[in-house]
């Protein structure tokens, strides 16, 4: 159980923004932080990690007090048992891929987890590469592996998959979830990607301009299409056979629409009355 | 073993002196060359020197005053001032008139505040009523050997230095020099002192070498190196 209440004035040149968030997070939950750019998501992670001190408030994790402004207690980041994936990766340029990951371990810990993680993140071939020679997505995967290697009890992820291609992303999401469960982690994820949030998280915390808006399930939060079998999409093109090619999120549908007067770029809503479901994979 | 602090311009005469001394006494004698002023500072602050051979009279006197010597210092030789130019077309003259010439742009002297040859040169210039006229041409060397560098490398057109520099060693035969009238400046007396440190060290040999500095054999060597001994 993580019990937190954080207040801090964030200094921004066009004025000050009051960050104010109070929330309870069950141990073992997968929580997403969602909010516009500049809403304060990274700042919250940094306070949880102990890099930034709140002006007031507290952080209680199970029975331990990590921070309490009244009791003037502040646990050092080293003591917090967290894993952090930084938005700028913060990999160590002086070490190769394997060493970046092993650095998380203590001297006498067995190294096999490193090999395992290299495997899982698809980095085995790159194990001896210098960080600067990796592409952006490769770097992000190293950062993720490094944060997990220590088997932290809380995992803080600042947009950990934004630079990764779809195939690898799917795979890593699955890995993340696996790890989250296997090590009974409490995971807090900052992400802009609805699909990702829905797939991974138990609850969403919604931030707006530094203030806590709501804490709810992702289904409810993104559930705008919930009421009926409705899809919205954009018309990308119309072919000569009277079909409209419609873009719905990441996929294209070809819909026969003879006689309608749709144009390119029209935004449309599709209401289905009849459908069949086929099981592809159990 | 003895350690002798020696004014830089005396170090070659001193080497010969040590060689002579070692013919009868094999004690190793280390020579520490340096500017007399600096050596004095060091002796006052605990330098492990047995004997101090200065290039002037005042520094040893000062040490005696501050009770760093075993006995009052004694003069061992007297330096002579020369006017020297390394430029072949300049012929120094004893009357110093040529210093006023337009072809003489810089005149090197040792620092009159700290070096005895410098104050002697200043004295003689004043005596000949030339000082104010040439004051803007004067360039000052920290020591007599630095002054000689200025002259020897021809950066200074002419300058005042010690006779010991121009008659012995590397500068011998370079350019032209003239010995100035010894009566025109106060004698440049050089003293040596037996230091208190010698007491903790090897006082017998130290005294032996100290006395040797005033022997007839030593005098011959001073003469050879351009000093006079009374």
């Amino acid at each position: 159980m993580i019990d937190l209440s954080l207040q801090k004035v964030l200094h921004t040149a066009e004025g000050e923004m009051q960050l104010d968030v109070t929330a309870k997070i069950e141990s073992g939950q997968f929580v997403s932080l969602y909010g516009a750019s500049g809403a304060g998501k990274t700042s919250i992670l940094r306070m949880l990690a102990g890099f930034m001190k709140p002006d007031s408030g507290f952080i209680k994790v199970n029975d331990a007090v990590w921070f309490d402004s009244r009791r003037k207690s502040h646990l050092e980041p080293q003591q917090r048992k967290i894993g952090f994936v930084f938005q700028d990766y913060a990999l160590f340029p002086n070490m190769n891929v394997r060493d970046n990951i092993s650095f998380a371990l203590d001297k006498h810990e067995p190294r096999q987890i490193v090999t395992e993680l290299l495997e899982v993140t698809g980095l085995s071939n790159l194990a001896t590469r210098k960080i600067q020679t990796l592409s952006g997505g490769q770097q992000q995967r190293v950062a993720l592996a490094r944060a997990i290697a220590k088997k932290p009890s809380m995992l803080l992820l600042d947009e950990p998959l934004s630079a990764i291609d779809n195939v690898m992303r799917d795979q890593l999401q699955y890995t993340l979830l696996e790890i989250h469960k296997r090590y009974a982690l409490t995971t807090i994820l900052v992400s802009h990607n609805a699909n990702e949030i829905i797939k991974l998280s138990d609850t969403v915390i919604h931030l707006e301009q530094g203030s806590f808006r709501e804490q709810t399930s992702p289904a409810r939060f993104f559930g705008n299409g919930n009421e009926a079998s409705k899809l919205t999409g954009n018309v990308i093109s119309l072919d000569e056979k009277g079909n409209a090619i419609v873009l719905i999120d990441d996929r294209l549908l070809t819909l026969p629409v003879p006689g309608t007067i749709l144009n390119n770029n029209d935004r449309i809503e599709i209401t289905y009355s009849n459908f069949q479901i086929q099981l592809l994979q159990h | 073993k003895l350690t002798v602090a020696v004014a830089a311009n005396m170090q070659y005469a001193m080497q010969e002196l040590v060689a002579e001394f070692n013919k009868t006494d094999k004690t190793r004698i280390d020579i520490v060359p340096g500017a007399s002023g600096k050596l004095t500072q060091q002796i006052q602050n605990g330098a492990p020197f047995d004997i101090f051979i200065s290039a002037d009279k005042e520094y040893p006197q000062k040490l005696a005053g501050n009770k760093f010597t075993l006995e009052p210092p004694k003069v061992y030789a007297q330096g002579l001032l020369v006017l020297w130019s390394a430029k072949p077309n300049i012929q120094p003259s004893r009357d110093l008139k040529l210093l006023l010439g337009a072809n003489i742009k810089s005149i090197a002297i040792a620092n009159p505040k700290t070096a005895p040859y410098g104050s002697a040169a200043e004295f003689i210039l004043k005596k000949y009523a030339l000082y104010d006229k040439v004051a803007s041409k004067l360039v000052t060397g920290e020591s007599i050997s630095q002054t000689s560098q200025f002259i020897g490398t021809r950066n200074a057109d002419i300058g005042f230095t010690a006779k010991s520099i121009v008659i012995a060693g590397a500068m011998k035969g370079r350019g032209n020099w003239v010995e100035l009238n010894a009566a025109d400046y106060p004698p440049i007396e050089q003293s040596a002192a037996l230091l208190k440190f010698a007491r903790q060290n090897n006082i017998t040999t130290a005294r032996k070498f100290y006395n040797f500095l005033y022997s007839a054999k030593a005098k011959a060597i001073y003469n050879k190196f351009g000093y006079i001994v009374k």
Partner: protein
Amino acid sequence: MIDLSPLWLTLKLSLSTTLILFVISIPLANWLAGGKDIFKIIVQAIVSMPLVLPPTVIGFYLLLAFSPANAFGSWLEEWLNIRLVFSFTGLLIASVIYSLPFMVHPILSGLSSLSPSLKEASWSLGKTKWQTLTKVLLPNIKPSLLTGIVLTFAHTVGEFGVVLMIGGNMPGKTRTASIAIYDEVDAFHYHTANVYAGILLAVSFIILLVLYTYNRKMQQAKFY
């Protein structure tokens, strides 16, 4: 014949000074890089002070401080039986004081140029500040460390005023190469002076060349 002992002495002095300063300056620079208070700024300014005075004058003040005639010097002599003037230890202490800014400054500017998230990443992996410093921060400011080492080493090789003043030009003990060259020039022995200077230059040149080549290789590995 050329007496090689001043060269050995110089090497010994320069290496020891560089080593001691390296060890001292890293925690000092790290401490200076860490905060913002006025106290640290004052310390930073004090570190540069040895640069401002002529070396002989620093030497002179150190001579006074170390002198058995004064409180500190006599305390050292009576209680610890150490005399710093005219000894190699004294020289070493003086060189360390005098060259301090050459080591501290480059390391400090290297550390301030690192992204703060590197440090935080290491903390989050449970590493202490010390482990973070030695395993993460320092290996990533190698060019700055190199600058500090080169400036300190070369500067100590060429150092002269301080050494002359408190070392006292004692053959084999405090007569370093720089003093030897000075003496030879003073005595118009240009040839010997040239030989000493030549050896000093050649050796230093080779050392620097090796260091720089190594450093360049490191950096090339970075961007190919």
